[in-house]
């Protein structure tokens, strides 16, 4: 076993061991802070291994390691392998996951301080388990193992959204997230079945033919639409904000929702064989990008703005992958993980200070929370794609590749979304940090060092992460050189325009009604039309189908079994009369049988 494999195993199984320990030893879990520190320790070890692994990979940029063993071998044959795939893609993602997870866990030490001890232990046990699940997905060598990790992160997401399960809205949101993603996951399962029946394996490097590849990738994309919150299955993500804010930062912004995008990056050899799927991806992705950005402009809850922004940015990635730019999608995935996690943690810091999610309860916080304000600004400009920040490089690459692929309409949609991104981030920043202080913001103050350290740690890659682009390009043997020509001019001008527009409307930090243009969209977003539609479908189709299945089960399946029981019972009732209890009757039966048998023997 080589060093990278060992490092990956450490990164994978130390958090897993900690999760098992905390799960199986309730007295330890209920100690609260010691359990939390143990979990942070595991995350630190995992992060250390990931950093080492990444440094090692930088030294050998094109290394592609695969270490696997047969899974459940039977008579020399096995359905699939389990193991680790160590290449540039998985190593980069491993670093992102462990770094953000580490920051979020440290942040949670202070943010969740007021939780009861038992709940705190449970929270950190989930977090340790999440690192294991996510890395299992990231390091998987084939689709079967990836599916395993995929379902586990879905489970962790459910558990963490429903962390405050005594609150009905949180419990509902958790169930909603679980059902929506589970519905989409059926696509992944079907894709696995189709792929296995045609190629006899779960490899994404296989060549099953154009038709099968199209079918498989379309099914995979269904799962991606659910997990990465693309239109029309994005409805669960805004509700998922019911979970604790650090959870939103880790799962519902940086890593878990990006699993869908990661899946496409990983299975790109399959997607490259399916032109139709890529076309669908371009349009779904770019539509989601602008649609979610518009809704983000009219939200009043700071976390909801960020949630819709996440939808929008994931749309960017999906569109980039559809346009054939694997690197654009992956690059934006990594930079987005940093600045969106930073923004969520910044929002967490603000929420912690004012005890409210509503932006009307904030305002004028700059004077009280300079550090949070600074890092929030860094995250905002990076997300908006201001020149020289991390978000600029990746977003520029996506817009460029979209234009190069010759699709003008999606390009315009993405450009519009870029403008709106700057606009709503400007709006959030001005409303929260400028203007008059509200009553609740009067006593706001920064959190402890546990909250400040992760903010600073994440602000660095959010600002500078773009300069890793050349390294990513090396993995696909591409030349990547940020160009400062006319093509880069539009993407760098648009965010500035967005911020100017936001300044002109919200510069004084006063909440104003949404622009008239956006009013109908705001109404539509608030009415939850899509939710009502799904509810209607559920009532009309789901319940009817369930009733039909229930009828079949109750009267046909159960009926057959009951019939067998009834026949046995009545048959027994009839036959019992033969047992008269009279010895002489039995003797006659025996004697008669003897004569009958003798007669039979003689006549034969």
């Amino acid at each position, binding site marked *: 076993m080589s060093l990278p494999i060992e490092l990956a195993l450490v990164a994978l199984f130390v958090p897993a061991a900690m999760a098992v320990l905390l799960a199986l030893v309730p007295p330890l879990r209920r100690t609260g802070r010691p359990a939390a520190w143990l979990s942070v320790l595991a995350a630190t070890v995992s992060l250390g291994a990931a950093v080492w692994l990444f440094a090692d990979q930088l030294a050998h940029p094109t290394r592609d390691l695969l270490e696997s063993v047969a899974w459940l071998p039977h008579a020399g044959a096995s359905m699939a392998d389990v193991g680790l795939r160590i290449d540039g893609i998985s190593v980069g993602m491993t670093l992102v996951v462990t770094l953000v997870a580490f920051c979020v866990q440290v942040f949670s030490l202070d943010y969740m301080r007021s939780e009861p001890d038992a709940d705190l232990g449970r929270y950190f046990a989930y977090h340790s388990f999440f690192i294991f699940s996510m890395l299992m997905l990231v390091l998987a060598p084939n689709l079967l193992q990836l599916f395993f990790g995929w379902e586990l992160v879905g489970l962790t997401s459910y558990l963490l959204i429903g962390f405050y399960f005594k609150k009905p809205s949180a419990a509902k949101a958790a169930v909603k997230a679980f059902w929506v993603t589970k519905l989409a996951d059926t696509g992944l399962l079907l894709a696995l079945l189709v792929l296995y029946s045609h190629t006899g394996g779960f490899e994404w490097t296989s060549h099953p033919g154009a038709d099968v590849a199209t079918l498989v990738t379309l099914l995979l994309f269904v799962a991606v639409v659910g997990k990465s919150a693309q239109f029309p299955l994005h409805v669960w993500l805004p509700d998922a904000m019911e979970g604790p804010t650090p959870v939103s930062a880790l799962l519902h912004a940086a890593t878990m929702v990006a699993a869908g995008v990661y899946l496409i990056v990983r299975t790109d050899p399959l997607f490259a064989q399916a032109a139709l799927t890529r076309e669908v991806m371009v349009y779904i992705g770019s539509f989601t990008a602008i649609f979610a950005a518009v809704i983000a402009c009219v939200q009043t809850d700071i976390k909801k703005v960020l949630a819709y922004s996440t939808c929008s940015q994931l749309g960017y990635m999906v569109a980039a992958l559809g346009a054939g730019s694997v690197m654009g999608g992956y690059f934006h995935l990594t930079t987005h993980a940093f600045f969106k996690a930073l923004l969520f943690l910044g929002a967490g810091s603000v929420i912690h200070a004012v005890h409210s999610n509503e932006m009307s309860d904030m305002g004028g916080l700059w004077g009280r929370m300079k550090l949070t304000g600074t890092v929030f600004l860094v995250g905002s400009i990076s997300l908006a794609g201001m020149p020289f920040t991390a978000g600029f490089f990746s977003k520029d690459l996506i817009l460029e590749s979209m234009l190069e692929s010759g699709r003008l309409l999606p390009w315009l949609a993405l450009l519009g979304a870029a403008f709106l991104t700057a606009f709503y981030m400007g709006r959030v920043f001005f409303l929260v940090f400028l203007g008059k202080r509200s009553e609740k913001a009067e006593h706001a103050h920064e959190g402890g060092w546990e909250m400040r350290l992760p903010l600073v740690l994440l602000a660095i890659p959010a600002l500078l992460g773009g300069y890793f682009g050349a390294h990513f390009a090396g993995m696909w043997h591409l030349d990547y050189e940020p160009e400062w020509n006319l093509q880069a001019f539009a993407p760098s001008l648009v965010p500035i325009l967005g911020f100017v527009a936001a300044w002109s409307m919200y510069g004084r930090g006063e909440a104003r009604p949404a622009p008239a243009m956006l009013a109908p969209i705001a109404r539509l977003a608030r009415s939850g039309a899509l939710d009502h539609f799904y509810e209607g479908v559920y009532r009309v189709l789901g319940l009817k189908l369930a009733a039909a299945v229930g009828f079949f089960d109750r009267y046909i399946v159960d009926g057959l079994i009951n019939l067998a029981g009834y026949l046995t019972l009545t048959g027994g009732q009839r*036959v*019992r*009369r*033969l*047992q*008269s*209890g*009279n*010895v*002489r009757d039995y*003797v*006659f039966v025996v*004697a008669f049988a003897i004569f009958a048998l003798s007669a039979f023997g003689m006549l034969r």
Partner: protein
Amino acid sequence: MPLAAWLILAAGLFSIGLYGVASRRGAIGILLSVELMANAVNLIFIAFGRYRGDHLGQVFTLFAVALTVAEVAIGLALVILLHRVRRSDERVDEVRELHG
């Protein structure tokens, strides 16, 4: 004596036993009749053994006798139990607890 004579004798014994089982009402009488039938069968074993010219029939008979002893022991135990529970004569027609 020819084989047929032994077989007729055994069939006669067996029929008498069967008649006894069917007509007797007392448990002891039935038990005795069963013994008669069993011994009729034993007689047939020996007769055939002789007819074949080996000792197989006698071996079987010894086994059968041993089994009959066990059977009679159980039968007598039942009779005694019946007598204890009922405290009356041992008319088997009246013992119908096990009817269906």
